[in-house]
């Protein structure tokens, strides 16, 4: 196996996708969580279509955020417990490539299904039809950001026993700009403004995250292994 850069990425991408496939039920739970909690707002707040239509962009985005947050805990936990995290740290590739492979696999298993299911949720929450395209676009890019930033938190808390709550505390402040712009895209689409403008900001966040987050994740994983 050559030591080229892409190999580290594809090796871990394939590995994580295979592992997720073997535990399909577990991998599907963020999606099911997303579907379930989206029904809580009509039940708890108001089933009136007009009010739901007002709240829909925000509700869908918040629920997508929570579902991603839930699944981020397990990103490095299983590997840390059985020792494969150490193996990842001593591979000859740059650590950022396996890390990027793992986070991409996480997005493919969590963020992408959320994005694809979101039009259905939009329909159920009376989202205006003109908002569906911006919703899908913003979620596709935004969940990528969420996976990357969430992975930073997961890497920092991987060795802690009750890391889940601390992970949320660390990561939610960093999620806030993503959700602000994400739901702004959908709102702009509904109100008739050019939704590509906030979309550009979201894309910029993804670009920054793809470059910087793997470095932070790699640094955090190395410090975990040496303690």
């Amino acid at each position, binding site marked *: 196996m050559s030591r080229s850069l892409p190999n580290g990425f594809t090796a871990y991408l394939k590995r994580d996708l295979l592992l997720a496939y073997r535990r399909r039920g577990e991998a599907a739970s963020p999606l099911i969580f997303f579907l379930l909690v989206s029904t809580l707002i009509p039940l708890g707040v108001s089933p009136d279509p007009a009010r739901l239509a007002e709240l829909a962009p925000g509700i869908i985005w918040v629920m997508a955020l929570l579902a991603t947050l839930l699944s981020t805990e397990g990103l490095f936990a299983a590997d840390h417990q059985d020792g494969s995290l150490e193996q990842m740290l001593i591979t000859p590739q740059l650590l950022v490539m396996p890390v990027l492979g793992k986070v991409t696999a996480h997005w493919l298993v969590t963020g992408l299904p959320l994005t694809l299911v979101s039009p259905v949720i939009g329909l159920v929450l009376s989202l205006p039809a003109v908002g569906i395209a911006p919703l899908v676009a913003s979620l596709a890019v935004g969940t990528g950001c969420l996976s990357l930033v969430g992975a930073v938190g997961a890497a*920092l808390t991987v060795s802690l026993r009750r890391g889940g709550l601390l992970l949320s505390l660390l990561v939610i*402040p960093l999620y806030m700009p993503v959700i602000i712009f994400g739901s702004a895209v959908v709102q702009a689409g509904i109100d008739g403004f050019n939704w590509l403008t906030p979309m550009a900001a979201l894309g910029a966040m993804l670009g920054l995250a793809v470059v910087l987050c793997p470095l932070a994740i790699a640094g955090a994983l190395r410090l975990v292994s040496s303690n």
Partner: protein
Amino acid sequence: MSSKTDWTWFHRLGSPRWFYETTGRWLPWLGLLTLLLLGTGLVWGLGFAPQDAKQGNSFRIIYIHVPASFLALAGYYLMAIAGAVGLIWRMKLSFMVMKAAAPIGAVLTFLALFTGAVWGKPTWGTYWVWDARVTSMLILLFLYLGVLALQYAFHSQEAGNKASAILALVGTVNIPIIYKSVDWWYTLHQPATIKFTSAPSMHPDMFQPLLVMILGFYCFYAVALFLHTRAEILRRERKSSWVRELAIKEAGL
């Protein structure tokens, strides 16, 4: 004759003992300066500065609100830079300074938000509004709390230090957003009054006590940071001989 720069002065700065002894000499003067500046600024600003044309006397909370906000932002940069220095040069003193900066910054951010809310009620009609600057200051508060929580979550001091440093650096991206948010978005919060490139848009009679308060707050921050860091140094270096000698001396044995 060596052609390389002599960096020993930099590495001497990383000695906890040097820091402890030097700040011990500075603190009385710094404390006096702080009291002087804060006292003058408060009396001048709250008592003698002229009333505002539109806001009357309620604008006077600016003399606490603005310095606290400045220091909350500057303190975060200090914490992040201390973390970065600790990670790059493996200086444990730098990590101690970072740990000390977190609670001070969190309290100052809370103070800024609280005084802002108190100011907002008579002027904007509401305690809270979800505009860009207020929201991003709230995010800053959560970031500070996160750095604090992460410090204490690890059993190993080393791991806690490094994890907090990484988190502090990741959160640094928020600071330019806070600073520029009032320029980028139309917000309820007013745009910057104090600019580096042009005269402030405030009357000098109101601006001068504000400068005094800002300087006073900077001195106060330094005093608080030194006190916290000194306590942290004593705690972490308690097994070393100079701390033991110091403790024996202080106890008068």
